[in-house]
């Protein structure tokens, strides 16, 4: 019953995810620069007249006002700053963005400074939205995230002896986070073969700034091999399955299947045309 006004905080944030709380309320997980990951309550969001709903969708950059609640803070105002519409309208880029958000969720802690990680996620969403290559955006984000959280993978020197490993002789261990040379192979019985070209690309990505990394040419096949390597590394570091990583792959398979089916139809049509001309 003190006369003080309820304490409020204003902050920018990226909405990482939402889950239902009771009938129409939601718990919204935010990534904020200064307070890291924060769970907040948004009331009445599911009702069709709620003005908060559109501003609190996952993958939205918002300005938000929070009132301090007993257990969780409560959203009193939210205004979308960027909602990344192009990214939302394309399944490949949307699935990639969901994956970036799940990684941010897994790799940040609550109530600790996350200025660097916020900037990383924000930059990656901006790049996906403006149409940069989904592969290079995702891979550079993964590598930067690992670096920032102390899990920098070792792509060049052998984990066992520290000697530089030629790319076409390397094996690697997702659990140990690096490559292993022929000499030390016996000490890492779980080590896996790694594609030499993919390894060269990862070495380049780790040493190049984003703009230059974007100039590395990738075939579809090489991109898929890079994705597979990085997904296993992220799973090993996060120590869990990443559902969004599987969805990125599922979305791509569905696109390839659709393109193949459409190409098949086109070929049939071409054949019909050819016959008609005869």
């Amino acid at each position, binding site marked *: 019953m003190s006369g003080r006004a309820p304490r409020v905080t204003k902050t920018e944030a990226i909405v990482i995810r939402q889950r239902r709380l009771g009938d129409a309320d939601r718990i919204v997980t935010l990534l904020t620069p200064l307070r890291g990951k924060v769970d907040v309550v948004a009331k009445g969001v*599911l009702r*069709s007249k709620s003005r908060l*709903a559109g501003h609190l969708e*996952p993958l939205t950059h918002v300005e938000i006002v929070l009132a301090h609640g007993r257990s969780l803070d409560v959203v009193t105002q939210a205004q979308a700053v960027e909602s990344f519409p192009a990214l939302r309208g394309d*399944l490949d880029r949307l699935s990639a963005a969901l994956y970036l958000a799940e990684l941010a969720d897994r790799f940040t802690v609550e109530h600790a400074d996350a200025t660097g990680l916020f900037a990383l996620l924000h930059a990656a969403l901006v790049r996906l939205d403006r149409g940069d290559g989904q592969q290079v955006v995702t891979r550079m984000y993964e590598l930067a995230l690992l670096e920032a959280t102390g899990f920098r993978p070792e792509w060049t020197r052998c984990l066992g002896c520290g000697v530089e490993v030629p790319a076409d002789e390397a094996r690697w261990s997702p659990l140990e986070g690096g490559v292993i040379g022929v000499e030390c192979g016996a000490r890492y019985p779980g080590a896996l073969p790694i594609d030499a070209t993919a390894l060269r690309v990862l070495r380049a990505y780790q040493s190049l700034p984003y703009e230059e990394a974007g100039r590395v040419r990738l075939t579809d096949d090489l991109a898929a091999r890079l994705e597979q390597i990085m997904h296993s590394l992220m799973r090993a570091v996060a120590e869990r399955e990443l559902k969004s990583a599987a969805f990125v792959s599922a*979305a791509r398979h569905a696109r390839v299947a659709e393109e193949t089916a459409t190409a098949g139809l086109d070929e049939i049509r071409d054949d019909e045309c050819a016959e008609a001309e005869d």
Partner: protein
Amino acid sequence: MNDFRDPSGGGASPIARLVDAFHRLPGIGPKIAQRLAYHVLRAPEEEARDLAEALMEVKRSVVLCARCQNVTAENPCRICSDKGRERTIICVVEEPLDVVAIERTGGFHGLYHVLHGVISPADGVGPEDLKIAELLARIRDVDRDVTEVIVATNPNLEGEATSMYLGRLLRPLGIRVTRLARGLPAGADLEYADDVTLGRALEFRQEV
């Protein structure tokens, strides 16, 4: 719910267990859960038994329709076996309650398919956790006259992701895939939309 801890310290009391059970139901806060539990405690034994039996009966006799995956006591369900329904169009929804909402508009006369959720990787739900394989199998093998699928998932991020994904799977089968028209506010839930808005969203649906 500390008020209901067994004072002897031997874990949760029966009434605390009942309060917890009510509290887990959607829309029931801790206060209402306590009131319901005390109501049951004071009510005649028959009333309590009726409630318990109704709960068990619904779990025993309600199954998922083998065709549309909606909850039903008969299999196939009434809508699937209704000869008067259009067999060329399927409306795909997230939850059984969405079927109720769309039926209430009176504007749709085709068949349904219930996904039982929506693609939401952050919550651990991928395509393989939904009734998507059942939808594809049904269109390939049973409902072969289907030419259009309306994806009536909620107008939010997860609903859009699900509709785009279904589009990629269904178009190669020669199916026209449409989406409810805008007009439902972004981030909203079908279940809370009024009949007029929902009816118009159905009527003015668009290609995915």
